[in-house]
């Protein structure tokens, strides 16, 4: 029998349950997070139009750069101001 040393972080993952999807968006405050990737704004502009048509209140946010995780303050701002967030993720 061999004994090895664990090369990993030895972290245990915590399981989180996914929130229920809202039945409709009417009256809900929805954040749209632009990650600053080329043409992401085009996609999010269209999403904003569709959400407003359905009675949602839309707030827009933007990450300083797509290459780094969103700053803590920005994440906090979105979490306290919105009920739902949509992120224009990746290419």
């Amino acid at each position, binding site marked *: 029998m*061999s*004994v*090895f*040393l664990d090369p*990993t*972080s030895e*972290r245990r993952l915590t399981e989180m349950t996914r929130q229920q999807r809202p039945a409709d968006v009417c009256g809900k405050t929805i954040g749209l997070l632009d990650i600053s990737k080329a043409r992401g704004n085009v996609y999010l502009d269209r999403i904003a139009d569709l959400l407003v048509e359905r009675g949602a209140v839309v707030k827009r946010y933007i990450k300083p750069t797509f290459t*780094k995780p969103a700053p803590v303050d920005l994440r906090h701002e979105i979490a306290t101001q919105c009920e739902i967030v949509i992120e224009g993720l990746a*290419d």
Partner: protein
Amino acid sequence: MVTQLPDGLVVIVKRECATCVMVTPVLARLRAERGLTIFTQDDPKFPDGLDSVFDADLSISWHNSIETVPTLIRVVDGCEVERTVGWHRDDWNALTGMTDLGADLPPMRPGCGSMSVDPNLEDELRARFSGSVLRARRVEIASAEDDAEALFDRGWTDGLPVVAPTEERVLRMLTGTSRAPDDIVAVVPPDLVEVTVEKVAINAVMAGCRPEYLPWVIASLQAVCNDDFNMHGVLATTMPVGPVIVANGPGTRAIGMNSGINAFGQGNRANLTIGRAVQLVVRNVGGGRPGEVDRATHGNPGKIGFCFAEDEVGSPWTSLAESRGFAGVDAVTVFAGEGPRCIVDQLARDADQLANTFAACLRTLHNPKLVLAFDALVVIGPEHARVFAEAEWDRARLLHELDSRLRIPSSELARGAGGIAEGIPEQIVEQLKGEPLPKFAPDGLLIVHAGGGAGLFSAIIGGWARGAVGSKPVTSAVER
């Protein structure tokens, strides 16, 4: 386990040592007149006719750092105050307070190696006596399992086989640094986990490193995990970049790194395993795995590990590290780069002609119409460097000459110009009113001298999103 030496005179011997056998009459006399305590390493009956304590597990020898037998020690109130190794009559007399020890023996004879430093036993002893300093979880591999397969099965490799990280190997790896195993080296993206020297050593064993490479792996990780380098982004990007490590300083030669023929390629253990160890830490400790946070469209083979040394001895210029403020020390510079591409110019015999070729090749980096977006590491081969050196161009002159050749009319860069959709927005072109734009930012080109002595070639290693929005090169000093 008793490791404390008793008060009084103590000697450590073994039968296999001719000097120990020779001094047996001296030991007998000291035992009778001074109450000498004798520890024997290999034979409990040695010395013949004298009571001795058998250091069967070598714990006494290990914990008292015995390197030679015989070693004669004087202990007062539990503390060692004096020791002498081998047989040296004057020293033995002085240490014991005698005047006429071993009068019939030669005045001096060197001792033999202690069993506790026998290369065949040292790793086992280190694990036996120092293993408790290691905190990592022990993973038992069943006897029916193949060790190499077991490491693949647990997802701990980069796709190539790794060396099994046993306690003995990890402890041996840790001898390469003076840092404590529980020292924190860095916080590793993307999971932002604090990595200890011990965890780095485990991954360095797996990568195939020798202990003397460990400080280079640690320095590289400190650079890679710096916020300016942005390892999270380097992993997450769809572009084919990874950490490219350029090593500088006399230590590169001491550990046998390659800065010459095939410097980027196969065949040199230090180059290959230092880069690989860094990437294994990012994978195993940081949790950065392809298909998860690593989203590279193609990646590149250098993401297994890409590390080479600068040829400083043959260089006409100061080194990359020195140009970045790290003169006269061992250092690593990390650059978020793709695979190397070759600059071919076998005909240019003057610096101007050669600079024209360099500029033309650099212009095409990632897209000929994208400017100020990416940095590049330019690795100049010795035969090309000679052309610049003969014209007395130093690093600053070369950078200036390249910049002057890489000013591109903005009209050529507009989106759609030349039938190419990529480029800069039309409104920015209008604002520039015909002003040219530089291909690279003022600090966007890093010059390194490396490669074999034959071949009129150089190399470009293209970067990723530059500066604060992406990655900045980071240099770290190597500390033992």
